[in-house]
């Protein structure tokens, strides 16, 4: 058995999402419960079937479980950083594989828009990190970190502003087909170029959308999943690596090395390759991250992501339809969670006007100091 094979197969059986946008009457707990109720309804399970609970961004695990009157035998919570969505899903797989739980609820609640959360500036607790060491020089936002990476990618490889604009406009066209997307009005490349800069070379349209919302997933073993009325979506491949050393500064390799490790582990576990993917869900906090992920996961050669996407490959009718929901850039910044929900729904064929015909394998990829990837599949091997 290859080293990256694991014996316990797992599956997503329930998916729940709230509306996204400005929902001031809900706090993060409420949004999490709303999403969890949707997910349980989706798979026909009840609260009492949950024996594992993994929370993300919801402030307090004890309060959350108290609100829903739940006593799981496995509980954990993780910080409200988007890179933790893939991490949490892999933790659920590990908990199921180890027998720590048999039905795991993953719950994400984010009231960042109504709470006035900032990614940048003195009150930023999620994005800038640290004690504001670089504020005296005006280095004050996570967007600037990605602007620095984009500028260097342009310098090294000739990547152009319009390549970033194509990522944003492609995902917006997808969002136009998603009734739950927050921003659904398509824009042209000319309109992209005319939009204001936030941190050059990034325009407003290169930034994700801060909103309120919640997402929940219900995972169980493949064996149990097959007994449920709705067909399981298998977690067929997964992998994780990190690049924390020196990570106060943009990585010289745009996270290429950890992504290569994750790509190998994920495809080996799945017994699949890039060409087998019917759609991609690419972590898109900012547009340049999409380019780095495509290179790191081997969809295109290093440095060629710009021209590669300019051939329309990420569009719904392209070779690798990506972020069919509109992603963080146009649906809502649900920190990877909604992208994973969309992946499951694509494999189920539930995506209506934005459905990728015959989607069987959909891959989530996240380029960040924690790299993760998950392959969702209609077949378990």
């Amino acid at each position: 058995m290859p080293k990256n094979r694991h014996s316990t197969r797992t599956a997503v059986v329930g998916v729940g999402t709230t509306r996204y946008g400005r929902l001031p009457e809900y706090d993060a707990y409420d949004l999490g419960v709303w999403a969890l109720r949707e997910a349980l309804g989706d798979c026909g399970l009840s609260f009492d079937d949950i024996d594992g609970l993994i929370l993300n961004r919801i402030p307090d695990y004890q309060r959350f479980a108290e609100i829903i009157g739940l006593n799981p035998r496995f509980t954990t919570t993780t910080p409200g950083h988007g890179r933790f969505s893939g991490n949490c899903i892999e933790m659920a797989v590990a908990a199921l594989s180890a027998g720590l739980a048999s039905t795991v609820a993953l719950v994400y609640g984010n009231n960042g828009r109504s709470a006035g959360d900032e990614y940048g500036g003195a009150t930023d607790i999620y994005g800038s990190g640290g004690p504001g060491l670089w504020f005296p020089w005006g280095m004050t936002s996570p967007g600037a970190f990605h602007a620095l990476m984009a500028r260097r990618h342009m310098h090294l490889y000739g990547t152009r502003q319009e390549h970033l604009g194509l990522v944003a406009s492609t995902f917006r066209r997808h969002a136009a087909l998603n009734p739950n997307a927050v921003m659904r009005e398509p824009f042209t490349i000319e309109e992209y170029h005319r939009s204001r800069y936030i941190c050059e070379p990034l325009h407003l349209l290169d930034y994700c959308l801060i909103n309120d919302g919640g997402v929940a997933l219900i995972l169980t073993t493949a064996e149990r999943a097959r007994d449920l009325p709705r067909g399981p979506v298998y977690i067929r491949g997964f992998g994780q690596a990190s690049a924390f050393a020196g990570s106060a500064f943009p990585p010289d390799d745009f996270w290429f090395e950890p992504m290569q490790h994750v790509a190998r582990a994920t495809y080996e576990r799945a017994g699949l390759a890039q060409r087998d993917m019917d759609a991609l869900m690419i972590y898109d906090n900012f547009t340049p991250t999409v380019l780095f992920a495509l290179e790191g996961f081997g969809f295109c050669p290093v440095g060629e992501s710009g021209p590669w996407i300019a051939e329309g490959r990420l569009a719904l009718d392209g070779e690798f339809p990506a972020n069919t929901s509109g992603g963080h850039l146009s649906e809502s910044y649900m920190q990877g969670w909604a992208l994973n929900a969309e992946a499951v729904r694509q494999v189920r064929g539930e995506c209506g006007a934005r459905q990728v015909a015959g989607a069987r394998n959909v891959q989530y990829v996240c380029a960040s100091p924690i790299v993760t990837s998950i392959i969702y599949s209609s077949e378990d091997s």
Partner: protein
Amino acid sequence: MTAAYTKPLPRLDGPNRPFWGGARAAKLMLQRCLDCGTYRFPAARYCASCRGERAQWVATSGRGTIQSFCIFHKAYFQGFEAEMPYSVVQIRLEEGVQLFSNLVGTPNDALRIGAAVAACFETATPEITLIKFKLADRAEGNP
């Protein structure tokens, strides 16, 4: 007397105190591991390369290269509004340490990745001097 200075200021009482003291004396001070020689900033008790605990603050060359730059069109602090749009440069020093800083005397449209730079010292308040950079004079033979 510092009423005119409205940008964020550093704390001077923490472990980076020697860095700020050095800046006031026109020196770029970094921590250097006494076990493996690796430089580091910000201050840390342990070396990220060898995990050694012995270190000292030393004056460094102040020479480096622009790794990248970006231009802020949004001010997250009021103090930057007068300079909009302003640039931030990512510098890699000869000693391997990276810093975010500003380039003095170079317009935004003349910023270039790969350019050699040298530290310069800009008084912010009587207590605080910021280390910034200027394009290095080629005659100085900076590689």
